[in-house]
């Protein structure tokens, strides 16, 4: 210990000269050390705590203005040294749960993180002595804590999944727990991931959206549909009117995830509903029961409108290629697509008649657009006929002119010298 201290003493003075203006003598040494004592000074200075004027002693105690190691890290200065994992939440909570204190920095910041944490699976297990679980610094990092709105933050929406699955996708780390570790792999194939990571829609859900952040826990069977309905309102309202709601509850099946799964939610196609291989309905329904027939009917409706839209699209494309302007009809077709989208939401009511109502509205539009397509094709035929007529008259004139010229010049060459 003394030799290390002596060695450090040799290193410290020139650095101290450099950092004269920076009264954080802790970093003078600790920025040069390797793990587990090392701290990235640049990272720390960009962190929210450093930006607000809080230094090492705010968490670790000690005296950051002293060059003397024994003084800086002495008991008299209240030095705590390395913080035990189990102590971390309480330490963070000392400030972050103090509403009066936090008001001085950011009045709109919540101060219930610690109490939420205590209700979470992580918090409950920690209370029982399991230090394997996540504490504050596992998600927020130790010395590089940034506000969630900062794209470089480990809890910025696009970074959340990576932060959670540092543990949750690590099969080795999670081997003592009875939960799967494929959530990230599944999530990365989902539409939500595509919306968040590819289309950069920050309102798309990530782990914490459905599981909570500080109070992280799986929603529970009864709550799943409420969680999903924070965005997918209509689907939940319709589901509540369907026979599935009571049945799923009785069978202890989660609302939405029974058909759509939880993490690897794919973009649904019309093939997801119906009675064919690959449809979810036949997981429970068998031929002959009312649900089976309903599923078949709804699938048929969706396919019908989809096909009609396709037919109109094809015809309009043909007309466009033939040179007729059909942008108005193409725009009207968008209305039919809206009807199909609406119908695809209505299926959650498991009521084929309700679905059919939306489909009929769409079919009315496709009837009109198909007509418009036929009119356009007729117009293109009319144009070609007109072209043919004028080409014939032009040909007549050309032939007549040629003959006229030759006759004229046979009589009178019109050539002069």
């Amino acid at each position: 210990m003394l030799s290390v201290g002596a060695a450090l003493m040799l290193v410290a003075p020139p650095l101290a000269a450099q950092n004269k203006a920076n009264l954080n003598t802790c970093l003078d040494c600790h920025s040069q050390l390797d793990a587990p004592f090392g701290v990235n000074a640049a990272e720390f200075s960009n962190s929210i705590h450093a930006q607000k004027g809080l230094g090492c002693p705010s968490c670790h105690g000690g005296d950051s203005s002293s060059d003397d190691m024994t003084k800086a890290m002495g008991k008299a200065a209240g030095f705590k040294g390395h913080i035990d994992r189990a102590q971390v939440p309480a330490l963070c909570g000392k400030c972050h749960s103090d509403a009066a204190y936090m008001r001085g920095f950011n009045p709109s910041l919540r101060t219930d993180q610690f109490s939420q944490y205590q209700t979470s699976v992580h918090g409950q297990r920690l209370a029982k002595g399991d230090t394997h679980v996540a504490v504050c610094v596992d998600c927020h990092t130790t010395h590089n804590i940034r506000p969630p709105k900062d794209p470089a933050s480990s809890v910025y929406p696009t970074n959340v999944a990576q932060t959670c699955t540092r543990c949750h996708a690590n099969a080795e780390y999670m081997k003592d727990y009875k939960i799967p570790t494929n959530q990230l792999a599944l999530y990365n194939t989902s539409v939500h991931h595509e919306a968040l990571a590819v289309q950069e829609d920050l309102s798309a859900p990530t782990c914490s959206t459905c599981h909570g952040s500080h109070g992280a826990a799986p929603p529970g069977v009864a709550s799943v549909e409420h969680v999903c309905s924070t965005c997918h309102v209509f689907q939940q309202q319709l589901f509540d009117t369907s026979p599935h709601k009571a049945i799923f509850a009785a069978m202890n099946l989660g609302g939405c995830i029974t058909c759509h799964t939880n993490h690897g939610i794919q973009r649904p196609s019309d093939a997801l509903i119906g009675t064919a291989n690959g449809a979810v309905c036949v997981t429970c329904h068998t031929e002959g029961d009312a649900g089976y027939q309903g599923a078949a009917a709804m699938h048929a409706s969706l396919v019908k409108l989809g096909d009609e839209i396709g037919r109109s699209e094809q015809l309009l494309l043909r007309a466009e290629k033939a040179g007729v302007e059909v942008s108005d009809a193409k725009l009207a077709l968008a209305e039919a697509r809206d009807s199909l989208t609406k119908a695809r939401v209505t299926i959650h009511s498991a009521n084929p008649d309700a679905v059919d109502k939306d489909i009929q509205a769409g079919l009315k539009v496709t009837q009109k657009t198909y007509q418009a397509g036929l009119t356009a094709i007729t117009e293109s035929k009319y144009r070609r006929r007109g072209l043919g007529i004028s080409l014939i008259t032009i040909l007549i004139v050309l032939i007549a002119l040629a003959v006229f010229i030759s006759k004229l010049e046979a009589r009178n060459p019109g050539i002069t010298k």
Partner: protein
Amino acid sequence: MSAAGRVKDWLDERFGWHEIRTFIEHKTVPVHRFSYWYFLGGMTLFLFTIQVITGILLLLYYRPTPNDAFESVQYIMTQVPFGWLIRSIHSWSANLMVFTAAAHMFSVFFLKSYRKPRELTWLSGMLLLFLTLGFGFSGYLLPWNTLSFFATKVGTDIAGLMPGLGPWILTFLRGGEDVTGATLTRFFGFHVAVLPGIAATLIALHLLLVQRFGMSVPPSVEAAWQARPGDRKEIRFFPNFLLRELMAWYVVLAILGGLAALKPWELGVKADPFGAAPPGIRPEWYFMFMFQSLKFIPAKIWIFDGELLGVMGFGAAFLAWTLVPFFDTGRRGWVQKFVTGVGVFGLGFIGVMTLYAYTAK
């Protein structure tokens, strides 16, 4: 004396038609192996007339404001009877006219019809060619779709590169800093009033000069005829040459009708000034050779900006080309051959650059 005859005489006493009639009856056109090139001038005039007629018809429905321009063209294409025909003929004929004007210019160049005393005819013709390109550039913006909006932006950007006057020219063309509704108003004014007015004057001048000096004969044919005067052949302009021209014009009408009915001009997507430029923005084919060559020039040549040098280079080349009658007066043989060589190079350059622009990835 028939009624028609009496009317003719009445008008003739006041307008003096008979003098023009006599002139036309005496006008002749030389016949030699290059005679077919003589059709191009009349063809260009014919296409210009078509442009004026279809242009006036379009004026009945077109609205030159950003909110309405695209919709009015759409209206013409979809609701107005035969609007699709008028509009597509106008667009196709514009391209055909640029082609025939350029072909006419090159044929005159290589047949050396610009020699004394026809220097002013050549000058007015070159100005008419530039005007035709101006017609094309200003007209291209009027449908106010994405392609035309960004093509105008790029084109005026390049115009603004000119040293000294550049920024002023850019602001003058655009009616402001950016391409906006003000640009549309301006381009519309240029396209339907300013350019037609200047063009009409220059065409009148050009035609008058052509009538004054008659048709030029290329040096090789001239020499051959001087050696053997018996070989000289000319046909009467009226009715012989004119009837043949009429045939050519009817063929062009057939082509225009076919193009309009089978390959109509597209409407595009309404321009969004705040949207991003779509990839692959490029000007019309007749500007492509310049566009492509500018892409080849490195960003910096010595201490000068590459693009600026390119633009100035083209400017100098066009100026020299316009002044060719003053270099090649026809008196010195080696100058004649040199000028022909430069012409072949120029034509080849334009052809290769244009082909490359369309075929290379």
